């Protein structure tokens, strides 16, 4: 699904912050992306979402060589990837329903089908009753659930989440994690960037640890002991 081969990255003329990243993300896998603050987790995720290109090395996403990719092609590819941000990024002047419907409307989905899918997904995250309110009226945890609903409503093959539990307490955090696991069971590849050790330890998945610009793969058995 995603393949990094000796990828390096630097911002502008700054120092290289990621060196020789080589990793393969299989379809349907589940990974945590960990590392101290400033290690480059967000940067790595943004490369997987076509927001930044490697400054060297080879990166292929869903069979597309990122270096050769035409601008006109990226919107279609982005729609196949769900993304969740730490700061939710919901549109406050739209209802919860319309926020979640955005990706489907962008894809030109018929309103009838869209309405059914959005309702279903909002019920799944437990917000079936809050469909027509503004996100402003929701708590941080509920807003994060809306953001997750928006990320998965288009049934993406890959879900990227950057600190999805960063602004919610542990109880909500665990609920959010269960939603991700459920998605994973349904076949979606999930990558979650986080430095919430408490949470990570409770969910047995492969860790990709960024240390000094290098990526180390830590298998489940090993990771649980950390």
């Amino acid at each position, binding site marked *: 699904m995603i393949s990094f081969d000796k990828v390096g990255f630097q911002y502008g003329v700054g120092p290289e912050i990621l060196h020789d990243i080589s990793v393969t993300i299989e379809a349907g896998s589940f990974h945590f992306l960990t590392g101290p603050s400033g290690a480059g987790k967000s940067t790595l995720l943004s490369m997987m*979402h*076509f*927001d*930044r290109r490697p400054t060297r090395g080879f990166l292929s996403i869903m069979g597309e060589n990122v270096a050769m990719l035409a*601008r*006109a092609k*990226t*919107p*279609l*590819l*982005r*729609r196949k990837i769900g*993304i969740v941000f730490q700061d939710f*990024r919901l*549109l406050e*002047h*739209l209802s919860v329903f*319309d926020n979640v419907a*955005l*990706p489907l*409307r*962008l*894809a*030109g989905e018929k*309103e009838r089908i869209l309405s059914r899918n959005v309702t279903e997904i909002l019920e799944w995250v437990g917000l079936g009753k809050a469909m027509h309110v503004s996100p402003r009226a929701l708590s941080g945890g509920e807003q994060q659930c809306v953001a997750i609903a*928006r990320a998965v409503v288009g049934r993406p093959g890959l879900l990227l989440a950057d600190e999805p539990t960063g602004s919610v307490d542990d109880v909500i955090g665990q609920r959010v994690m269960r939603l991700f696991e459920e998605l994973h069971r349904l076949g979606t590849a999930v990558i979650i960037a986080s430095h919430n050790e408490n949470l990570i330890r409770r969910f047995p998945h492969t860790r990709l640890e960024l240390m000094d610009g290098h990526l180390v793969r830590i298998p489940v058995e090993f990771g649980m002991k950390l």
Partner: protein
Amino acid sequence: MTRIPIQNENRAMTALSVFVSAMMVALSILVLAGAAALHHLDVEWRHALADRWTIEMESSDTLHPVDVEKALSILRTIPGVIDARLITQDELRRLLDPWLGVDALAAELPLPILIDLHVSPTDQITSSLFSERLSAVLPNAKLDDHESWTRIPVRIAQTGEVFGLSLFSAIILTALSTIAAAARARLAINRSEIELLHTLGASDGYIARQFQTDPFRSAAVGSLIGAAISATIIVIAGRVDLSIAPMIPQLYLTAKDVAFLLAVPIGATLLATLVARMTAYSLARRLP
């Protein structure tokens, strides 16, 4: 394409856009209509009298009718002259009645002798050549090619036209910069929306289309209002009867002018839409 209600609604800004487009369109139409009417006036003044010259002599006492006949036949031989005709005293009196009145005093007033010349304006006959030939038969005759007295009103009309067109250019420049500023302000407000749409997989063109709809609507409504305002003013102005002042001809617009003026609101709407679209497009384009 389903339209996504992504834009932050800003009533004050929408109202301002409608108002500005209405005013710009109304002003443009009025200024252009004025310039067109002045242009007709200018052309008419120049053409109406271009083929009519007049020869004028003091009074009839000193002049023998035979001399006049001789003068007429000489005049007719000059190349470029189509016809030469003596304006009779009766005719002259009728022409002057409205100015002098029909009383006895007026009847005794000595009238000049006038010869009406019908010349071909394309033949480029010069008045100096004329005066030369004329002085042989009618030594005290004066030639009036009317240019001297049409020159000033024609120049005034032409100055008015130039002034109108400059004003129109100024309005267009103002309108363009206002539209561009409004488009940029609107994008600044909606920047996070644009970035989000981009992230969720919207193409640059899609984003541009989303952000042209509202400006299109404001501009269309404003242009309609502006066109209605200016049309009302033009109709009222057209009703004003100028015939009381005999030297000022009626101002008018042709069907072609009206069609041209109708292009103003349509053009303004398209322009506003295009600018909004291009501004959104260039912003989307700069995203990764």
